[in-house]
């Protein structure tokens, strides 16, 4: 039988799903052990149990100076920035996507501009962003917006353009104005795609958040990672990285489920 037609049964499937994770853990454990055997106070690859201890400590013990549990404070600060940045981008992209996709005038004006702007590497223009938006919370949110908005606009306006012309014409024959077409025909069909696009841009959004927090911040997950890099506390860094990965994964999952729940008229995509 061809490999293409061979399906693992449910038990084997479970094993296979776990396999790469297990291998990764094993590889890490071995590497860590080898390094620790050479230098017991090596900080680069702490043992798994050490990471576990550190994680427990970070999650439960308050900081000596501030008497707060920094882990949760960092998480809170980062999540607020991330959600603000992504939320603002999504809202702007929806409006601009609709305008660009529906109105030939706006399309002529902005489509090319957005295409060029989307090529500017945001990290390179950071100083300008700082000057314009200051170093506070605003600039971190703005960096996320600058980072993901062009992609979102391009994706969403392409989707609006993909709405079958027939459907728009149908709405016109029912007397819909441009505004009603945007609001009642295009927007509802854009929303599932918006969630898709937001899912795709969550990765970059985290990236820009971490970059912004690395540059100027008092708290946040990215801040902590770059701060403890100064004394190579890999146990802390790895705890934070695993936590960020988990958060990102959960957000992705939530958005997927949300899309299935909110838009029963569309099929879920992978």
């Amino acid at each position, binding site marked *: 039988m061809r490999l293409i037609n061979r399906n693992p049964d449910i038990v084997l499937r479970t094993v296979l799903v776990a396999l790469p994770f297990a291998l990764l853990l094993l590889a890490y454990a071995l590497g860590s052990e080898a390094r620790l055997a050479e*230098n*017991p*106070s*090596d*900080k*680069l690859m702490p043992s798994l149990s050490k990471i576990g201890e*550190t994680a427990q*400590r970070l999650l439960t013990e308050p900081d*000596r*100076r501030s008497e707060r549990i920094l882990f949760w404070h960092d998480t809170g600060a980062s999540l607020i920035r991330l959600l603000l940045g992504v939320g603002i981008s999504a809202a702007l992209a929806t409006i601009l996507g609709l305008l660009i996709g529906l109105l030939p005038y706006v399309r002529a004006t902005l489509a090319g501009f957005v295409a060029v702007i989307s090529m500017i590497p945001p990290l390179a223009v*950071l*100083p300008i962003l*700082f*000057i314009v938006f*200051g*170093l*506070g919370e605003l600039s971190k949110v703005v960096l996320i917006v600058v980072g993901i908005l062009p992609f979102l606009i391009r994706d969403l306006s392409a989707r609006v353009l993909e709405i079958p012309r027939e459907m728009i014409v149908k709405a016109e024959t029912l007397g819909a104005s441009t505004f009603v077409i945007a609001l009642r025909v295009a927007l509802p069909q854009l929303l599932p795609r918006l969630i898709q696009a937001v899912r795709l841009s969550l990765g970059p959004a985290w990236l820009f958040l971490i970059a912004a927090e*690395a*540059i*100027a*911040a*008092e708290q946040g997950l990215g*801040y902590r990672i*770059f*701060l403890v*890099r*100064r*004394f*190579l*506390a890999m146990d802390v860094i790895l705890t934070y990285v695993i936590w960020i990965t988990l958060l990102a994964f959960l957000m992705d999952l939530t958005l997927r489920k949300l899309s299935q729940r909110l838009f029963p008229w569309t099929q879920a995509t992978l």
Partner: protein
Amino acid sequence: QEKTDFRIAWSIYVGWMPWGYLEDSGIMDKWAEKYDIDVEIVQINDYVESINQYTAGAFDGVSATNMDTLSIPAGGGVDTTALIVGDFSNGNDAVIVKGDGDLASLAGKPVSLVELSVSHYLLARGLDSVGLKESDLASVINTSDADMIAAFATPDVEAVVTWNPLVSSILEDPSATKLFDSSDIPGEIIDLMVVNTEVLEANPNFGKAMAGAWYEVMGLMAAGDEEVLTAMAEASGTDLAGYKAQLDSTEMFYTPADAVEFTQSSALPDTMVNVAEFLFDKGILGEGAPSADFVGIEYPDGSTTGDAGNVQFRFDTTYMQMAADGAL
């Protein structure tokens, strides 16, 4: 174990520019050849990354300050020796505010700096001197050195602590006032070339070649060789005048004898104890550290501070002495 190929890392800073010149000019190769070894000098843009790489074993030596050597490699169990004591900061690091004021006026203000760096230490010492604590500040904002100038130009930032060449750039702004600098705590922020102790012990030739090459360039600099200084200035992104200005606030040890004398002075152990306490206070020595004395530091005369059973940081004047004696 003996070997012939060595790699050291350095990053751009006034007192370390000679390392780049050593590589470019071929002086390092000349001395390495003399001792039948090969030394590669690699420039790393990110200072912290260069120390991390050294700590992870990617390099045999790295340019670092006394404080960072104690916290990263020594704290991380990599036995490290200060092979060359190059200079100490004598004004290169500074606390700067917008508008007028003095150290006491920092209370209640946010301060931007690279957290846990020598800037942080300088600030702590400065606040100490007027009886303030870090908790009296509004906040300490960790700000990347690459963006410090841009940060100072934004309205939210009221005070920064940073180092040269950023200090001179920021002071060009007429509204900037310097409150405190490293010349107020001379000899406490020391720029070193540190190397792996095991490697050095197994390969004395490595130490000899490094010291020989370094002091050859020191000689050229002391003599005011414009060509050498210009090369260094341009490599650091400024011009001759700018570089000279930076050198003015740096106490370079042009002769090995000066360096040996400084290293052997009784002030050094006091400084290191101060630094260790600062690091412990900030939690940098790691949660494995039960006290500020967790890591032992050995001095040229064999005395130690900290835990004598866990010596990970050694000041060793052997090779500088050889240079002073002309024995290389």
